[in-house]
């Protein structure tokens, strides 16, 4: 990155074109011509460099203005350094580098469980990493610092370039250098036309090629006093326009992303078939919102019920299709409509969209007392853990009706931990496993506990994990026989789906299973804005990559007394010597061909004498 070259405002490739080759330098180059080319090129190109900072300090130097001004100078110099291309490049590389840990370390925004796992695996390293926001890289202050600096640098650069481009759009192409033919690919020939006629002919040729033109005014003179017959032509302003659109759209996109995160919200909710939810804060299992969202009135007032969930699979068990049939009302007094939500096909209600992001199984449990009365019943969603939907179930029943025991009046609560297998088969090595994701032969391997779950003590618990510290494992009676630690229930067989032998003569039946779906509600009011910015980015990029900016100059001068041209006989009938040359900042090859074609056309237009003087390169 650190480049020990002198500060310069002229990019290398332009300088290489504008300066004469060494062999010509020894022959005495037309310095005035090259000077004329130099500054114009700078004007066309981006002026991102330290050179401007140097000029500023010369103008606002401490000697003339005192210490207060000197501070301003320092600030302005800092500003110019920030907006220089080298800084921008450094920040770009830093941005790329800073994003790397976000993909290698688990991120809270993506998978908080993995972060917890990382903390368990690396107890000493993880807190240190956490202190530098390594588990929230993309929300980290240092990540924000990099992209904000980058965008400030970009805006600083853009403001100047928009001004220059506006000036270029209303202005005229820069005047022709003294000897355009000295530029790479330049040519010289002579014609019997007078210089004004030759320039007019060149003007017509360039006009036809849709160049923007500036013909030297009649009577204009060159610095040495001779009359100025020249035409300057420029084309490809769209390149810079596209470039500016691209960069401005980038800024607008960042603004849109920022506003979207302030005004957007998202919630995740698990819905068992037959159940539903309303779009309110309390309905969601997980909810996050932007700073400027009003949680009371800011959410679209819809409610939704999942009527049916259909999943189909390939014979191999690979999923083929998921769809949730839902009934929803988009407001309190709105009629109920039925819709289908599929993967890739969310349901849009107002500014919110509802996505189907997951599904699984929820067996139905009934806890009965010794008399057969229902103590508790409900569906318990199980967490899928493989592609065949082998799922982990955790059932916690706090209110069992059993009397507390012991001097501390410990509650006697029940808990069951199980593995649900939708298509159950007995594998010799691994026990009961699932061989297909559909619920063809639902089975449940169950173990039970009694004791204190600590669920009513004000400390939030994960409903999917069981803390058995103060619990005692039960011996269960059931399909596998009596007094066993684990039982296997077949949910479709009424005779094989009940465990007994629970404390107090209670029994637990798993009498069915329903599918659940996980929905995500997401609202981002600035999504459209970001999309428009993205389209502008592509368009601007394509234009700026495809269009080339180039300048062509034609200069004519009377042949007599110029001393140019070694073959005197070839000039006998010539009245005027015409030079053509041009510059393109990009695509050297394509421009060389274009310049040759223009020169050919121009020669044909001035053709009165077939004897042509060839390129002045050959004269050297």
């Amino acid at each position, binding site marked *: 990155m650190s480049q020990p070259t002198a500060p310069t405002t002229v990019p290398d490739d332009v300088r290489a074109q504008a300066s004469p080759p060494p062999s010509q330098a020894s022959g005495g180059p037309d310095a005035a011509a090259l000077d004329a080319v130099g500054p114009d090129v700078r004007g066309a190109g981006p002026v991102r460099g330290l050179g401007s900072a140097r000029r500023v300090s010369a103008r606002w130097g401490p000697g003339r203005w005192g210490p207060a001004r000197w501070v301003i100078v320092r600030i302005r110099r800092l500003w110019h350094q920030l907006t220089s291309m*080298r800084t921008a*490049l450094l920040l770009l590389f830093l941005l790329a580098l800073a994003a790397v840990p976000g993909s290698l370390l688990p991120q809270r925004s993506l998978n908080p469980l993995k972060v917890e796992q990382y903390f368990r695996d690396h107890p000493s390293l993880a807190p240190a990493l956490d202190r530098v926001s390594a588990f929230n890289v993309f929300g980290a202050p240092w990540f924000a610092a990099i992209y904000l600096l980058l965008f400030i640098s970009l805006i600083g650069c853009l403001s100047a370039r928009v001004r220059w481009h506006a000036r270029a759009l209303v202005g005229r192409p820069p005047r022709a250098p003294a000897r355009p033919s000295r530029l790479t690919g330049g040519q010289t020939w002579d014609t019997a036309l007078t210089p004004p006629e030759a320039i007019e002919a060149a003007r017509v040729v360039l006009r036809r090629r849709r160049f923007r033109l500036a013909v030297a005014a009649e009577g204009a003179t060159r610095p040495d006093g001779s009359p100025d017959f020249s035409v300057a032509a420029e084309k490809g302003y769209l390149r810079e326009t596209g470039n500016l659109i691209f960069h401005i759209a980038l800024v607008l996109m960042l603004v849109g992303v920022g506003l979207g995160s302030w005004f957007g919200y998202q919630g995740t909710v698990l819905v068992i078939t037959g159940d539903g939810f309303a779009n309110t804060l309390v309905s969601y299992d997980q909810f996050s919102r932007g700073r400027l969202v009003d949680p009371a009135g800011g959410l679209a007032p819809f409610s939704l019920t999942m009527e049916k969930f259909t999943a189909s699979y390939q014979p191999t068990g690979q999923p083929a299709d998921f769809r949730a049939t839902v009934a929803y009302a988009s407001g309190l007094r709105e009629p109920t409509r039925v819709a289908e939500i599929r993967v890739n096909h969310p349901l849009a209600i107002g500014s919110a969209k509802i996505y189907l992001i997951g599904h699984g199984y929820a067996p139905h449990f009934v806890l009965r007392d010794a008399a057969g009365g229902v103590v508790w019943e409900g569906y318990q969603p199980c967490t899928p853990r493989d592609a065949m939907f082998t799922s982990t179930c955790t059932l916690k029943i706090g209110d069992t009706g059993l009397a507390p025991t012991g001097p501390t009046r410990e509650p006697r609560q029940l808990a069951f931990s199980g593995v649900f297998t939708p298509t159950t088969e007995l594998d010799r090595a691994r026990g009961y496993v699932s061989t297909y994701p559909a619920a063809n032969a639902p089975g449940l391997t169950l173990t039970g506990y009694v004791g204190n779950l600590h669920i009513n003590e004000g400390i939030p618990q994960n409903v999917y994990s069981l803390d058995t510290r103060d619990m005692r494992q039960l011996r269960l009676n059931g399909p596998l026989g009596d007094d066993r630690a684990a039982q296997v229930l077949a949910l479709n067989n009424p005779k094989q789906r009940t465990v007994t032998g629970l404390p107090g003569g209670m029994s637990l039946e798993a009498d069915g299973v329903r599918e659940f779906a996980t929905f995500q509600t997401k609202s981002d009011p600035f999504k459209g804005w970001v999309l428009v910015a993205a389209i502008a980015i592509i368009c601007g990029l394509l234009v700026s990559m495809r269009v080339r900016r180039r300048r062509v100059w034609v200069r004519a001068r009377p042949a007599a007394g110029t001393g140019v041209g070694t073959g005197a006989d070839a000039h006998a009938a010539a009245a005027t010597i015409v030079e053509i040359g041009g510059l393109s900042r990009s695509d050297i090859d394509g421009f060389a061909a274009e310049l040759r074609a223009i020169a050919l056309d121009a020669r044909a237009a001035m053709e009165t004498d077939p004897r042509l003087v060839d390129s002045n390169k050959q004269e050297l």
Partner: protein
Amino acid sequence: MPVNSGLAALSDHFLGATMVVYALAMLGYAAEFAFGRFGRTSGAPAVEPVMSSPSSAGAARLTASERVPAMAGAGLGAAERSGEVDGGVDGGGVDGGGQGGPGAMTDPAAALAAAMAGDSEHPPGPAGVRWIGRIAVALTALGWLAQVGSVTARGFAAHRVPWGNMYEFSSMITLVAVSTYLVMLARTRARVRWLGVFVMFPVVLYLGFAGTVLYVAVGPLVPALNSYWLKIHVAAAIVASGVFMLSAVTTVLYLLKDRWENQLAAVAAGRAGASAAMRKRGGIMMRLPTAAVLDRITYRVIGLAFPIWTFAVIAGAIWAEAAWGRYWGWDPKETWSFITWVIYAAYLHARATAGWKGNRAAAISLLGFSALFVDYYLVNLVISGLHSYAGVN
């Protein structure tokens, strides 16, 4: 819809044939490239620089640029070659070249191809060696047909676009690379044949990897992929990756040639003697365009791929919005796409504005390709995320 197993088997057979034919073609190109130099008709030995002073370098350059306009349709390589034969090692002869033709201005592919054309009407080498090269081109075309057959059969077998998993994606990337090469061959009347070995080597390697490690049987798409965005987003990613791959090839060639030119300059200036390695590899090195041309080709190829990549990323964001409810979530695949994009953006800025050329630009280009590699392989196979569709266990 059930999988058509007959077509699936046909696709696999075609793939096997493709690999064999491509490998033969690669050997053919390699043979032509390696042995071609012994038939050079321009008497100057490969590493016997005539140049003794800077002024003669200038003379050589002028000779080169003078000659070029006279040879209609001659590629840059012609200028470069005459320059080198006459002893000019500064690569300056190239500036006088650039016979893109007027058509090249409107057609970047043709301009690119013309710029890459190594040699003009007389590819050096005895007739036998040239025939090997021609046979290699024929084999490439044959292999291309077989690969098109393989991809098409697979698409029909599964009733969907044939880029639904990593194996199919890899096959498509190589197909894009070979197609690009064949188009360039056609546009330049086989003047870019020198590139053959450099294209076919990674293609064969890649295809072999895809056919063995990444291979999965024909199957329907997982629901998450079942969207028309698969056609748009993945197709754009395939094309951009294929073109970026080409840019990595030209970058590596640039680095080789640049080193060679520096060594040659050192020899010419009397600072070093010509080593045995230089004598041995000289012919191969001199068949390549100058480092400056390779540098410019890389710039153009990346300039071509970058907007496509941008489009692929944005299309992916639109799809993610429809599928997952957010357009950007810093999933590992998204993160590495972003890193790739930023690095190539830095390359374009460095080249276009800061005027970085040569080794520094080449380093950024290779850095960008490494990020693309991570994005594609490591993210799919090692880092788990939402894009884990490889289907590889």
